[in-house]
């Protein structure tokens, strides 16, 4: 039964394991998600910043290009404004002007143009203001500024991008226009340079895509890429004014000691490019080309992978330690203490009711200990009460027994033909011995001694039945043998308890001294004649209530005047001393061989009483210190003769 129940530590281990595993997996997954999100966001920021950088850089580089060109135009040859004007006139360059810092044109190809102000070109006006404010801070600054969009020229004939620049040593602002196509080409050239030269992380790169969706640059010198269109749907999306996915932001960059504001539109996402997964940012630059900033997903999340591996190892260690710590704690606070309580309980269960449970480390165990001890104390009370009840039951049975036997002595004081005395001392376990005597008619004395085999209350009850039965049968005039025969039948009926009774029944004719006897398996009585003691051995019949259908025989013996008949039960002969030696038949016989020295009469009970007293006393001495194991019963008759 014990083996099929699990131990607490095993149960806890099992039940703890699942939550621990769940917690572990949850934290692992949660951390992974957070890291993943964070790495993704970083990747998006990275590609976006990169795209912006590329766009800004391209602008810068383009501007620088024009500066270089203009420098070459003026600076190397050290031209003056007047010389420059002559150049313009000679070459009929109608789209290049020189102005002063207020915008008035001071050199142009025609006189007509010289009447204009460059502020007439809308964006130029803004650029001039910027230039003027920049020059407040620094003198002699070399600067190039460009219009965002193509502007109408002063002569109204063309739409051009305008570049405005100051050059060291030249006393004027050069403003020249560039054909849009030419501008685009320059920009693309610069773009290719910038894009190819810039990397994102280790394996990220930029791709320039033309306005007609053709790839212009590539990370590897692979001609194949050039014509491939990549994700043209994304390009459509980002150029769509109503796009949900495209984002428009305003950013600012410091350029030429000025803060330049840009408005950018872009699209970020994650997709497959040339067979690999990339985070991308798609940004149109003016309407000249598109920039894809690509960052491989694998690289972006690479750190996540590494981190997760460490985390896995770390978490496994932590959770394992946690698991075993909890298990250990439970074993120590609970299991160990429970074992201690159980040990005490086992001791108590084995019979030691004085054992106390003293496991008081924690409140719960303290309470448990107190409660168990209280319960045991209560049980001890009940046991004591029950024992007291049993004792009183035994006392009751003894009382029944004692009260059933005639105890008034001398029983027939007016009869001078005999002396009669009898005693019964019960053992602790009520044994069911009894004696009885009664007058049958005027001149016959019936007497008997008996030993019932049953004990305690059933024994006492059986004894009552037998005694009553025998007496009533005797009083109905039957002979001793017939009394036993019929009594035996009756006692055999319904004798489920299988109790037996040995008995010795005698009818003494007081006139003649003849005793008619029937013996049902009882110890032979002692006949004391003239100081000599002898056992009366008669043919025994079977004990009563043992077997039915037994015919008992009658026998006779004769008592002479002064003869004594001493009847007893085996409590006398089987009395034991402390060495477990029996008193025995021989010792009894020897004791009763009075010779010439009969004991002095004991008051009204005469010598019969004295004999009983002497045997009782001798037995007491003999059994001194040992416990009485059986009832000690005796009956003594002294025949004094008929009238």
């Amino acid at each position, binding site marked *: 039964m014990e083996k099929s129940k699990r131990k607490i530590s095993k149960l806890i281990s099992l039940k703890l394991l699942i939550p621990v595993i769940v917690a572990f997996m949850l934290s692992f997954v949660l951390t992974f998600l957070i890291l993943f999100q964070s790495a993704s966001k970083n990747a998006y920021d990275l590609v976006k910043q990169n795209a912006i950088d590329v766009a800004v850089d391209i602008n810068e580089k383009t501007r620088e290009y024009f500066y270089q060109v203009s420098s070459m135009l003026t600076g190397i040859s050290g031209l003056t404004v007047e010389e420059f004007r002559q150049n313009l006139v000679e070459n009929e360059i109608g789209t290049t002007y020189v102005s002063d810092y207020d915008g008035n044109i001071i050199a142009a190809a025609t006189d007509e143009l010289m009447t204009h102000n460059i502020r007439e070109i809308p964006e130029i006006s803004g650029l001039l203001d910027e230039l003027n404010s920049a020059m407040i801070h620094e003198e002699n600054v070399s600067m190039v500024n460009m219009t965002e969009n193509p502007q109408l020229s002063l002569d109204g004939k063309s739409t051009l991008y305008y570049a405005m620049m100051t050059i060291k040593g030249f006393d004027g602002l050069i403003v020249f226009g560039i054909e849009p196509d030419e501008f685009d080409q320059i920009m693309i050239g610069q773009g290719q340079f910038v894009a190819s030269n810039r990397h994102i992380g280790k394996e990220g790169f930029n791709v320039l895509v033309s306005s007609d969706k053709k790839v212009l640059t590539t990370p590897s010198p692979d001609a194949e890429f050039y014509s491939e269109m990549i994700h043209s749907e994304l390009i459509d999306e980002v150029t769509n004014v109503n796009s949900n996915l495209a984002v428009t932001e305003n950013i600012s960059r410091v350029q030429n000691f000025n803060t330049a504001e840009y408005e950018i539109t872009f699209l970020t996402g994650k997709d497959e490019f040339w067979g690999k997964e990339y985070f991308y940012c798609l940004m149109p630059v003016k309407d000249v080309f598109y920039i894809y900033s690509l960052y491989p997903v694998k690289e972006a999340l690479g750190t996540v992978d590494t981190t997760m591996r460490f985390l896995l190892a770390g978490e496994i260690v932590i959770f394992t330690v946690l698991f075993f710590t909890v298990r250990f704690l439970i074993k120590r606070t609970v299991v160990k203490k429970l074992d201690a309580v159980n040990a005490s309980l086992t001791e108590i269960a084995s019979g030691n009711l004085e054992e106390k449970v003293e496991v008081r480390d924690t409140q719960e165990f303290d309470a448990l200990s107190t409660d168990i001890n209280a319960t045991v104390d209560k049980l001890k009370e009940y046991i004591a009460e029950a024992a007291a009840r049993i004792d009183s039951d035994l006392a009751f049975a003894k009382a029944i027994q004692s009260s059933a036997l005639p105890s008034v002595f001398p029983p027939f004081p007016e009869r001078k033909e005999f002396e009669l005395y009898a005693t019964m001392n019960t053992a602790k376990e009520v044994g069911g011995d009894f004696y009885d005597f009664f007058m049958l008619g005027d001149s016959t004395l019936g007497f008997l001694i008996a*030993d019932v*085999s049953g004990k305690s209350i059933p024994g006492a009850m059986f004894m009552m039945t037998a005694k009553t039965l025998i007496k009533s049968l005797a009083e109905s005039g039957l002979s001793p043998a017939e009394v036993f025969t019929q009594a035996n039948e009756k006692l055999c009926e319904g004798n489920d308890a*299988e109790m*037996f009774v*040995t008995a010795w029944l005698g009818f003494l004719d007081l006139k003649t001294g003849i005793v008619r006897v029937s*013996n*049902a*398996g*009882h*110890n*032979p009585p002692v006949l004391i004649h003239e100081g000599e003691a002898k056992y009366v051995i008669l043919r*025994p*019949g*079977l*004990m009563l209530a*043992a*077997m039915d259908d*037994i015919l008992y025989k009658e026998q006779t013996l004769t008592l002479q005047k002064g003869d004594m008949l001493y009847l007893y039960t*085996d409590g006398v002969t*089987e009395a034991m001393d402390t060495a477990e030696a*029996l008193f025995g038949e021989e010792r009894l016989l020897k004791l009763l061989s009075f010779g010439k020295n009969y004991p002095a009469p004991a008051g009204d009970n005469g010598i019969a009483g004295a004999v009983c007293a002497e045997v009782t006393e001798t037995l007491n001495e003999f059994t001194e210190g040992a416990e009485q*194991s*059986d009832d000690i019963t005796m009956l003594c008759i002294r025949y004094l003769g008929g009238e």
Partner: protein
Amino acid sequence: MTVNTQKDGTKLTVTVDGKLGTSSAPELEKAVKDNLAGITELVFDFAGLEYMASAGLRILMSSAKVMKKQGSMRILNVRQPVMDVFTFTGMADVLDIRPA
């Protein structure tokens, strides 16, 4: 007192040594009761029995009652002191008792 039981098919032999008194009687009673089922021949060997009190008689009587229905019972190798008890109680006439 020591009690030994030996089963041989439907024959049960109960050997009793020592003294059969009030305290040792329950042991004999249990030994007989536990083994009596299905026995048709019950034999008591009292070769080693020194003494028997009335408690012992009761056990023998109830065993005899049972065996009356189940088969037969006899008591062998009975020593004199024990034989005396059987005689006094009239059991010698009723049971199959053989002296040593």
